[in-house]
């Protein structure tokens, strides 16, 4: 039997407040939104990027371009998993040359997804700068990568799982820390 202990750490209202703060930080840090574009990392980075787009529009009255990035083709562990990961479509309809790209993801963990995202972005052009916005930073980095904007830092152990749920993909907004125990 595998049992789970589920600790919800952010609820729907909290998630909204956290993203609102991130939107303000992105605008403040870049002194406006000129030349700014958002790139959501699939799967849950994409809806978060669209929410940030709306929130930044509320602040600055301007819609930032949003792209969707799938990094499967750039991963370093494709052939270490028994199951071949599914490749999803990348969709970047604008030029990123000379832009400031804000990469958006739900959870920052080992940093390997971000490393793959950086490689992918460089293949699309030469941005002036790349920044990283994450909803959750759970630690345990394996690469020298840090986020510019962090929704919430949650110290975790490696046996735990951080589960982000979003209305767009999971019918509800919440963040939980899941700890499995018992015989697997």
């Amino acid at each position, binding site marked *: 039997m595998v049992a789970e202990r589920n600790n919800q750490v952010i609820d729907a209202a909290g998630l909204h407040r956290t993203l609102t703060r991130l939107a303000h930080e992105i605008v403040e840090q870049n002194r406006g939104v000129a030349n700014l574009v958002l790139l959501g990392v699939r799967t849950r980075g994409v809806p978060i990027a669209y929410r940030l787009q709306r929130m930044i529009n509320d602040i600055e009255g301007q819609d930032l371009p949003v792209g969707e990035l799938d990094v499967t*083709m750039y991963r370093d562990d494709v052939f270490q998993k028994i199951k*071949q990961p599914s490749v999803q479509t990348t969709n970047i309809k604008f030029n990123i040359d000379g832009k400031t790209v804000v990469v958006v993801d739900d959870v920052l963990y080992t940093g390997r997804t971000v490393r793959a995202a950086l490689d992918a972005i460089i*293949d699309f052009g030469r941005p002036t700068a790349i920044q990283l916005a994450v909803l959750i930073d759970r630690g345990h980095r394996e690469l020298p990568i840090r986020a510019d904007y962090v929704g919430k830092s949650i110290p975790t152990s490696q046996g735990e799982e951080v589960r982000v749920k979003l209305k767009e993909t999971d019918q509800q907004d919440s963040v939980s820390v899941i700890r499995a125990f018992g015989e697997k």
Partner: protein
Amino acid sequence: MQFSRKHLLGLEGFSKEEILYILDTAKSFREVLSRPIPKVPTLRGKTIVNLFFEASTRTRISFELAEKRLSADSVNFAVSTSSVKKGETLRDTARNIEAMKIDMVVMRHSAAGAPHFLSQCVDAHIINAGDGQHEHPTQGLLDLMTLQEKFGDLSGLNVVVVGDIAHSRVARSNIYGLQALGAKVGLCGPATFIPYQAEHWGVEIFNKIDEAIEWANVLNVLRIQLERQQGGMFSTTREYFNLFGITRQRIESAGKDITILHPGPINRGVEIESELADSDYALILQQVTNGVAIRMAVLYLFSGLSSDNSSESDA
């Protein structure tokens, strides 16, 4: 979806889900081809041998491009310059190549079943790039992808394969793939070109091209392979064109939208009117572009399981 096949030997036996999964993956790789740098590092460190025992331009270049776009290391082996000329057997050629530690073999051979044989004597993953008159699975998949782009769901679509069905591996892969996706398949050609007992494939058979056009939404026009016509099954190209050639007049007199596919290379004025091949009815160049995307998807999906963990389930 759990994709657990090691070799792509043919489309026979593939489920709808498996085929749709390959087509979805190909769509993602097609996007890569339109990037400023159309290359991804996915297969870095994998070595692929293109083992072509039979002449091929399009398929070989398409596989080579797919391999390069995925950053695999590829080696070409053309029979005309190889030790096969000196009498080496297929098994020995394969074992020697394997001793050089390669991961995948893309193979074309004039004998049906050659890739199946190879898959039993080496550990590498085998991709069939056409075996005799048996199957040409990547061609079948790229035809499906091109039709899916145009029609979305293929169920209920009427597709007629026109030409020398008996000698055509493209026809066989098309039949398996189209039927798996719920399309209805017709075959059209002179009686000598329709295989014995073809009616058991669950297909419609037409001996008159106008009746086939009447029934069809799509015509997949095969090349008349003059090099395979030594058996007296075929009189002249002129007679064939008059009786079965696809012309604008024939299409337009049907009074409906018809889509034309052709696996290439085209014999203009034999199986299809030259001008029609360049018209909006034909999706021939789109097929070629999709071919690279399909081959990238196939190389990616079939390189997944290594021989030592192929029996394990998903952890």
